[in-house]
């Protein structure tokens, strides 16, 4: 579903991605790990079409980035560490706005919004201002926004940032649930255990390249930290 070959991205003279190769199969859930500065966020921004690669090839669902960005955008849902919602609008109004931007017809709009809110457990709060939402609720609404247009690919960039235990547990359940729908998912995270538990595949970035790529099931949870430290060369594993 996602093919990345020889991807290079430099900011000015500073190369962040240095010839990165990555393959994400349809329907798989890839956890993208790596220390700060390894290029996770940069890679996510390129996959989301927010940033243009300096060199290399990126295709999502057969469409080239950045040339066919509009086709890619239509089949992409993104949840970032910022919720990307409007405080002064209600949950339903936020979703309605994005539904219009994704050209859902007025007929399907309301049903989809109701379903998405139901899905993330916010049906009862549809007409409340986002301002009154807790961080965890905002993040769940952000997920509702991301799945509203039924994208093939979902990108989660550090979705657990700022969530408390309870909210994180809810997000765990929600992500596992969404993964079973057959979306192709890429998620960055700092939390090794959680990432390994949720994902079907794991990729560890190190200095702008993929240092390790493997099946989550084949990795023993207790040895994962050691593997991560080995690949990234980091002393601590956060």
């Amino acid at each position, binding site marked *: 579903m996602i093919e990345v070959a020889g991807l290079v991205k430099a*900011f*000015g*003279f*500073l*190369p962040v991605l240095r010839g990165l190769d990555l393959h994400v199969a349809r329907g798989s859930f890839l956890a993208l790990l790596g220390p700060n500065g390894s290029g996770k966020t940069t890679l996510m921004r390129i996959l989301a079409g927010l940033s243009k690669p300096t060199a290399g090839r990126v295709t999502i669902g057969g469409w080239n980035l950045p040339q066919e960005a509009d086709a890619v955008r239509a089949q992409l849902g993104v949840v970032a560490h910022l919720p990307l919602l409007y405080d002064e609008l209600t949950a339903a109004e936020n979703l309605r706005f994005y539904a219009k931007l994704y050209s859902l017809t007025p007929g399907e709009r309301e049903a989809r919004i109701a379903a998405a809110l139901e899905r993330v457990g916010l049906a009862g709060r549809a007409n409340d201002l986002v301002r009154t939402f807790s961080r965890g609720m905002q993040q769940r609404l952000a997920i509702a926004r991301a799945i509203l247009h039924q994208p093939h690919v979902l990108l989660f960039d550090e979705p657990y940032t700022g969530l408390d235990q309870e909210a994180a547990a809810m997000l765990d359940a929600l992500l596992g649930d969404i993964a079973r729908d057959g979306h192709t998912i890429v998620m960055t995270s700092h939390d090794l255990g959680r990432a390994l538990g949720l994902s079907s595949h794991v990729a560890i970035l190190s200095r702008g390249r993929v240092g390790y790529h493997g099946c989550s099931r084949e990795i023993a949870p207790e040895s994962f930290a050691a593997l991560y430290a080995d690949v990234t060369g980091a002393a601590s594993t956060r």
Partner: protein
Amino acid sequence: MNRTLDSAPNRVLTVLTVVAVLMFVMAVGMALFYAPTDRQGDVQRLFYLHLGTFMGGALAFFIGAIASVAYLVWRGEGWDALALASIEVGLVFSGFTIVSGAIWARPIWNTWWTWDPRLTSAAIMWLAYAAYLMLRNGIDEPGRRARFAAVYGIVAFSSVIFTTVITRVRPDTIHPVVVGPSPQNAQGSFGLESPAMRVTLVFNIVTFVVLTITLIWHRLRMESFSRRVQALKMKLMAR
């Protein structure tokens, strides 16, 4: 663009620099000694530099606008450096145009500055390009800085052109026009009666064009070197 990045001494540039300096000395000499004294007195001799620097500044800003468009189209680092170099040189020259105009205006118009449309538009042009440099200073990420600067460079240039056109069609300026018909209210007009005056003017304009190109070239090389140093530093740090 890559030739300008060569660190080896550039022969063409060396020759050009020598020629520009010699021409400049001669141009000033001609304005001071060769051209006959106008009925305005010696202060009129400022005119040759006044118009010369104006032409130099206008040329530099024009190059800056072209380089800005080129950067957005081709994304070469060199185009960004050229835009920056040109606009800096343009600011220096147009600054000199304004100052020399003020010095000249004091005896002729009896004031350093007047809110004449022409003067105002020159001042605004200077401010717009000063804002260009401020914008560059306010952005840290090099790619974004180059992109935004190019966008602003284009907007500033078109706007300056438009302001100039607007102020030129106004009949209420007191600024004389030497080449072409002078406005009816013009004060301190003079004709270029003698051929020596015309020769001096043409020579001054040519000199300032050469000088502008030379200075932009030098500034461009300086900018390229400093960017290369920056890149090497980054490389060392990334290791």
